[in-house]
């Protein structure tokens, strides 16, 4: 059997499977899915930025009550992190791959998004962890410095704060890098291989 005969058989293929579609149920499901997707996106954005907003309001109110300027640094850090996430989400939402695009465009967009996520998580120290650490350290150390009696007090409190922030930062950084290695890098390699297949490129690797 040559290719043309195979093609002829393929085009005249018997169903092989019998499909029963409940059209009304399908339409209900697609409408529900569309609503759920919008809600899901809204809740995700709310969760990610909501915590920062609550922190800004809480520490802002506290700083105002106690007339403590150092609290302002923590408020600024929280506002920066929340704002950064919002702007990034908005920018990424604008270049989300569209399912009716040609396959190559869709894969290229998906690869760009994965590369962006990798970049974001690899730099999480600079835009998320350190600003928050700096704000937290200022929030604790500056008011407590007024009650230090000697160098030992200073060393003890500073050491505790630096140790706590360092441990917390290290743990969060490790979790983020683990996610990059275990989830994002394999997905990037897969998409890069797919794109290479579409471009006739021998090397499946693509630089992030």
């Amino acid at each position, binding site marked *: 059997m040559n290719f043309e005969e195979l093609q002829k058989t393929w085009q005249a293929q018997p169903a092989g499977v019998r499909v029963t579609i409940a059209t009304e149920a399908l339409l209900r499901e697609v409408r529900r899915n569309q609503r759920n997707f919008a809600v899901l996106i809204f809740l995700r954005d709310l969760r990610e930025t909501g915590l920062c907003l609550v922190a800004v309001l809480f520490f802002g109110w506290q700083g105002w009550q106690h007339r403590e300027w150092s609290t302002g640094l923590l408020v600024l850090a929280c506002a920066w992190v929340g704002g950064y996430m919002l702007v990034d989400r908005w920018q990424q939402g604008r270049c989300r791959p569209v399912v009716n*695009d040609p396959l190559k465009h869709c894969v290229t967009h998906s690869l760009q998004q994965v590369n962006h996520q990798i970049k974001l998580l690899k730099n999480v120290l600079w835009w998320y962890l350190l600003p928050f650490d700096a704000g937290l350290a200022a929030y604790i150390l500056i008011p407590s410095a007024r009650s230090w009696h000697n160098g030992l007090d200073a060393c003890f409190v500073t050491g505790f704060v630096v140790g706590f922030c360092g441990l917390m930062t290290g743990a969060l950084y490790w979790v983020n890098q683990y996610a990059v290695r275990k989830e994002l890098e394999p997905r990037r390699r897969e998409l890069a291989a797919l794109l290479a297949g579409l471009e006739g490129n021998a090397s499946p690797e693509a630089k992030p």
Partner: protein
Amino acid sequence: MTAHEQETIFRRWLEEHLGLMLKVVRGCAASPPDQEDLFQEVCLALWSSLPAFRGEARETTWIYRVAFNTALAWQRGERRRRVGHETFLKFEVSPQVHPSHADALPEQEIVAQLYAAIRQLPPVDASLALMHLDGLSYQEMAEVLGISENYIGVKLNRLRKQLAEQWQGVAHEL
């Protein structure tokens, strides 16, 4: 596009292009539960894509794009399995139907083997094989995949040989 128009077009596409959607689904997913799952994903993606459909692309090109993009995302595990949702379709494997003569391979068996061979291919080659077997022109395939017609030609040459070789082995076994 009004909701009524969207629903009308969607119903018509389901009637007219169900075969096309099923071929993509069967070419990308092996087991019936996976096929059901992927088919539902394709339907949802198609519905969501409808408001953007302006009639500039052919309907079949549009449906192929949506189906392939959805199938690739589904294969990468980017879409969650649809658990606990309302089921709106049922796949049942039909019993084999009449071979034309006693020593001929049943057509259904040939098609099943072709699907199995397609599922072994890399995703882009599988997409090309499905469209080529369906008789799409180079231009139509280029529109679906977003690559040049020349490159389609090069890939198809390789693919035809590969499928023919695979097929010889399968036919021999049968």
